[in-house]
């Protein structure tokens, strides 16, 4: 057991706070549309302006995700992606980037199947900083959350509009790295969040924790990113990026062109966030 948690997430969020701006958190599914293209995009994300990388572990049955992210999982699986390859991509990325935090996001079964201890050891060695596992609420903390904390990997919890004041302390209890606020009750890629409502919720959570709050679900455009960046410590964008990969596949675009489209949107989103200035 390692008592010292990795601190890339903390260092990154602290640095951005000092700079007075929110983090751009980008989501892509590992291996979408194929291993080589996915790795190419991954390596370009920090230069394009991503501050934190969420990397999806593909799963056949992503129940909390919308059609865009489910389709990305299916593309990746069809191309032969699996947990070993996902961890290898993180390792390859980490060889060239020592600072950008990587958070693996997904569902519990592929991790359970891989073996929790083996997974945590391999993830730590590969350079993973945090985990978001959608179907592990606080009631199941002994499954993965507590072992991850022991291993030195942050466990990032989702808080949602249905997380009332009674539940919030339980949700925050073992959360580390940051808190992911799900801006709408619904699936990823659904309608745009109402900024005013999100603001109230972010403030409600901030009153109970010192951790940074990133907001996601439904953020697509630089303008939306700018609006959310003004009220939170991080903005998560996923479906909009993943859809660019789908669009590229549909017209048989070359890997370079798909990659350029994705990093292009990341740059625009980063610009939107910088325009918002401080979230505090």
């Amino acid at each position, binding site marked *: 057991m390692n008592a010292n948690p990795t601190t890339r997430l903390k260092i990154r969020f602290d640095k951005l706070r000092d700079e007075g701006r929110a983090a751009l958190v980008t989501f892509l599914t590992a291996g979408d549309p194929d291993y080589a293209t996915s790795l190419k995009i991954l390596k370009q994300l920090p230069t394009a302006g991503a501050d934190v990388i969420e990397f999806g572990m*593909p*799963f*056949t*049955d*992503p*129940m*909390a995700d*919308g*059609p865009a992210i*489910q389709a990305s999982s*299916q593309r990746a*699986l069809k191309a032969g992606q*699996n*947990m070993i390859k996902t961890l290898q991509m993180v390792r390859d990325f980490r060889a060239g980037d020592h600072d950008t935090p990587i958070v693996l996001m997904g*569902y*519990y*079964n*592929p*991790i*359970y*199947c*891989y073996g929790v201890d083996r997974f945590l050891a391999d993830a730590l060695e590969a350079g993973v900083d945090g985990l978001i596992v*959608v*179907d*592990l*609420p606080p*009631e*199941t903390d002994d499954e993965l959350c507590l072992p991850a904390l022991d291993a030195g990997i942050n466990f990032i*919890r*989702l*808080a*949602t*509009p*249905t*997380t*009332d004041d009674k*539940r919030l302390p339980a*949700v925050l209890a073992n959360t580390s790295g940051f808190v992911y606020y*799900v801006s709408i*009750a*619904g*699936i990823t890629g*659904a309608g745009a969040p109402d900024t005013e409502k999100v603001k109230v919720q972010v403030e409600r959570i901030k009153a109970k924790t010192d951790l940074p709050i990133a907001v996601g679900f439904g953020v697509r455009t630089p303008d939306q990113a700018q609006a959310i960046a003004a009220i939170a410590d991080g903005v998560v964008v996923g479906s909009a990026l993943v859809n660019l990969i789908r669009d590229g596949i549909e017209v048989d675009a070359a890997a370079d062109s798909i990659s350029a489209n994705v990093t292009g949107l990341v740059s625009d989103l980063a610009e939107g966030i910088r325009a918002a200035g401080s979230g505090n």
Partner: protein
Amino acid sequence: MTANAPNSYRTGPDERGLFGIYGGRFVAETLMPLILSLEEAYETAKADPEYRRELDGLLDHYVGRPSPLYFAERLTEHFGGAKIYFKRDELNHTGSHKINNCMGQILLARRMGKERIIAETGAGQHGVAVATVAARFGLPCVVYMGETDIERQKPNVFRMKLLGAEVVPVTSGSGTLKDAMNEALRDWVTNVESTFYIIGTVAGPHPYPAMVRDFQSVIGNETREQMMRAEGRLPDSLVACIGGGSNAMGLFHPFLDDKDVEIIGVEAGGLGVDTPDHAASLNGGRPGVLHGNRTYLLQDDDGQIIEGHSISAGLDYPGIGPEHSWLRDSGRVTYVSATDSEALDAFQLCTKLEGIIPALEPSHALAYVSKIAPDRPGDHLMVMNMCGRGDKDVFAVAGHLGVEMSE
């Protein structure tokens, strides 16, 4: 894996919703508060005599309970061994056991003030039962159904529409029951405040496995009384088919602590459990986490879910209720399988000898009965759950038998 035998097999789940290591509440945070309030509402309703009275009244006068326990005399003669009884849940309103559970859940939805009902369905029997109770209580109803299943269960699709339900074809994933369940969960996550999700089997996050089991236990409770009246003693063996496992759990649960009663669950063996094309989670899968619970699942080495195959659209779910997983590991219940062709043979045999057209689901149970009944003595009392009638399967069976019919 055989655990030490517990004092009772009927006390689960624990307060975390676990049967041994199985079950639990593996859901997104958005759903957690709702699942906790559902559990609370169910516990309150269970203790309320008024709820029980209303449910019993509807089961008697609307569903048509109790269902008969029927001595299948000609099949008994044919097999020349055990004395075979059918628990006739196919005679329920809507043609299967599914309505026992739907009635319990819709009364709960009303108590909770929910205004909208959603459900998933595979063969359509659960969808029809949900659409029926939604019509009866005037609640709007959306049923998610895989497009593959819509194609092979057309009569049930039309029936649901007649009942006023909206049937939403599910094209995501592989377009079958598991994907329909994913879509229903997505709907629920999006409409948490207004919507009640009627899960059709003893799976999903706690409290569903226990709640659905409780509603279906009417099957086993009646069987106990009816067998005592008919034979003056308990049955020697129980046989039921298993997809998610709700009809089986309903028959089995009241007998779990009667250690002399042999209990057998029959999974869908498809083309054979030694081939990739089956839906036998307990015989051909391993433990994993899907749809809110830990249970045996059909999955590959990477933990990706594999599509089940069965001639019966009601059995091809890649998971199984968590209590069955626990009963398997503890050794209390024996889980076997029957193939597509064995079920098809049993379907025809039952129709010809008993004048009862069984659904393809209980045809699997009967297929296994046909294997073991001949070797049991004449005083061996065997109860098989006839959990659904076969009207819905007539077209599909015709296809398998090479008979052309216009629909």
